[in-house]
């Protein structure tokens, strides 16, 4: 790790350091989480929470956020997945309460059709324009009397 010019505070540096230390621990501790037992469940929670938006943050996923509501919602996710619900059902659960806003992968509906179609349509349209241009140019070429002299222009 890069040197940060940090001084180690040794023992006995006084009440200030102890108070500060207590403050630090208080801030760092949240809901005391025991060692998390089920890696498969945790992986599902992690994957799902990466796709869901933290509603009180400025554009962060539930996975990346440490906000209280984010933690509550992750806990909710974990409980529901553990109870046997599918990812889709949990997603629906949140959308019913918070709207489509909570999904980072926008659902496919009439209002988002353009969003999902455009990335496919744009390059195809561009290539179609190129194609038609080339066809037209070749048509004009055929009309020209002089044939084009070939010749490899090397790089």
């Amino acid at each position, binding site marked *: *790790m890069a040197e940060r010019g*940090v001084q180690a505070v040794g023992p006995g540096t006084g009440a200030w350091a102890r108070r*500060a230390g207590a403050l630090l621990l208080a801030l760092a501790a949240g809901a005391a989480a*025991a060692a998390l037992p089920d890696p498969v469940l945790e992986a599902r929670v992690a994957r799902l929470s990466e796709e869901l938006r933290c509603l009180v943050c400025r554009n962060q996923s539930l996975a990346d956020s440490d906000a209280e509501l984010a933690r509550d919602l992750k806990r909710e996710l974990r409980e529901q997945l553990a109870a046997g619900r599918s990812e889709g059902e949990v997603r629906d659960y949140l959308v019913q309460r918070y709207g489509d806003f909570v999904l980072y992968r926008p*659902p496919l509906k009439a209002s988002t059709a353009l*969003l999902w179609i455009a990335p496919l349509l*744009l390059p195809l349209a561009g290539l179609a324009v190129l194609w038609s241009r080339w066809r037209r140019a070749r048509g004009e070429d055929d009309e020209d009397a002089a044939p084009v002299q070939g010749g*490899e222009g*090397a790089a």
Partner: protein
Amino acid sequence: MIPELGHFALILALPLALALGVLPLLGARYGSARLMAVARPAALAQGLCMALALGTLVHAFATTDFSVRYVAEHANRTLPLHYRVAGTWGGHEGSLLLWVGILAGWIVAVALGSRGLPRPFAARVLAVLGLVEAGFIAFILLGSNPFERGWPAPADGRDLNPLLQDPGMVLHPPLLYMGYVGFSVAFAFALAALIEGRFDAVWTRWTRPWTLAAWAFLTGGILLGSFWAYYELGWGGWWFWDAVENASLMPWLAGTALIHSLAVSEKRGGFRHWTVLLAILCFSLSLLGTFLVRSGVLSSVHAFAADPRRGALLLAFLAVVVGVSLALYGWRAAQVGAGPRFAPFSRESLLLVNNVLLVSATATVLLGTLYPLVLDALGLGRISVGAPYFEAVIVPLMLPLLFLLGVGPFLAWKRAEAGTAWRRLRLLLFIALDVAVAAGVALALSPLAALGLGLAAWVAGSALWQLAQRVAAAPARTPIWRRLRAVPGGHWGLVLAHLGVGVFVAGVTLVKSLESAHDLSLRPGESGRAGAYVLRLVDTRQERGPNYLAAQARFELLREGRVVAELRPEKRFYVARQMPMTEAAIDRGFTRDVYLSIAEITPDQRWIVRMHLKPFMGWIWAGVLLMALGGAVSAADRRLRRAPVARAESACAPSSTSLANAAVS
């Protein structure tokens, strides 16, 4: 007193920029050498003023002059000097001043470097730059003035946001802005070309190095931003498809299309419409990005504090600049003319498809970024568009692009022979397929990931093969070092940049496929297993930094019983801003990164940490660095600095427009 000096210098820069913007333009129009001669001294004078303005703001930060309101909001007595200096661009007003300061720098560079340009053309280029700068200075003076005083001056400032107290903050914005602003030069060249009707080798030969340099800076700036986010934000992510990140990616994608389009324009005289429009697009995207980040229309962790009034002013400015340039294009498009023809299977046509794909990618990112806003503005509800969407739509665009990347350099200009190309490439294809299959099986990759690796090998192999061919083509018995030196800079640039793409794609594919996270809960002395490693918590302590308190733990990372690394993650508390922060510990290696961050510290001294194993993470950085290096090397190619040789537009099938141009110029 000194801030007032800077303020005055800024005010003075405005009429200078206006003079630069208007007089040489008139001079070029009416053939007045005297008016055109205003350009260079005006450019140098405004450069001096902006340097003074920026310098005094930096000075105010360095001396913690809290009577300047902006300084009080972004610095603190306990803040170390280099972060105080970086605080200059830590907020909206100062970063905008930096933006304009860098623009002033580019203007001086163009003024000094344009001695070989025909005078009217140079005058027009500088004039366009001057007008853009005048607009920005006016905007700053009207609503975003960093020199405003606040009385009474507070005893101590608010402190720079702890997230920004990092070496990344010192370098990232300046580097990024060098890129954003650098595209204004290509923009100015394009507008000057439109005004003058000159689209010949002079235009392209001059535009190329400036554009390559700007692109290289932007690449470096994005790299640094991503690298910084990776270690700073504490959870191992490095690209979030956040609005502000997209605002930098869009000019980069368009810029990549531009540099390739320029290559065709310079070498073959073609792609003129593409080059002009792409130059306008790149800079427009830079301006759009500036608007998005500062106006509050989009929600982002990186955004500056929102102010709709400021946003409206910026939008108006953006509308004027882009509107005028597009109108100019529409009006003068007939003068642009067409370049020489080329066959449907040729390097040009592949680059054309390349352009289409890159512009589509740019448009896709733009659509995704703005779509929530569009729906909301139309009253159609609120949605979010995030990483899952972007990743889903960008990949199908990038895959064909990567394939073409490998093929393109092997095709001849104008008309390529399919047979020759196949002969040159089939070995490479075979190797790439082997890599895909072998890696896919050995690492249990998904088909998509295996394809990604195959394409990475394809691209990297193509670049190296290109170099090998060049080196082999030298006369026999030339020593290897002389052969390497004989390879022109532009070619080295191509090789490095394309190799970088391959390395980058390999890195991304492997990280995404193979990364894993392990949660451990340890007390001092305990160890836990994480993948092939064992993590042991050795001891903990409290530290005091210049403006923060930290709880730090020392971990040892063991592999097969031996200590491989020592990791010291921290949880910090910044006193002035009352803000907690997580400092991750990273052990970087050639084949993997180990990323350790503290989730919580329970009252009974139990440290809950998350350890990420990210294979080949370093390749992501290395790949982008190679790309930036390639751009820089290409920009420095001495061939581009020699005066262009006047030559006929094309050997065969000249277009009537180009003949007419040649007759007039």
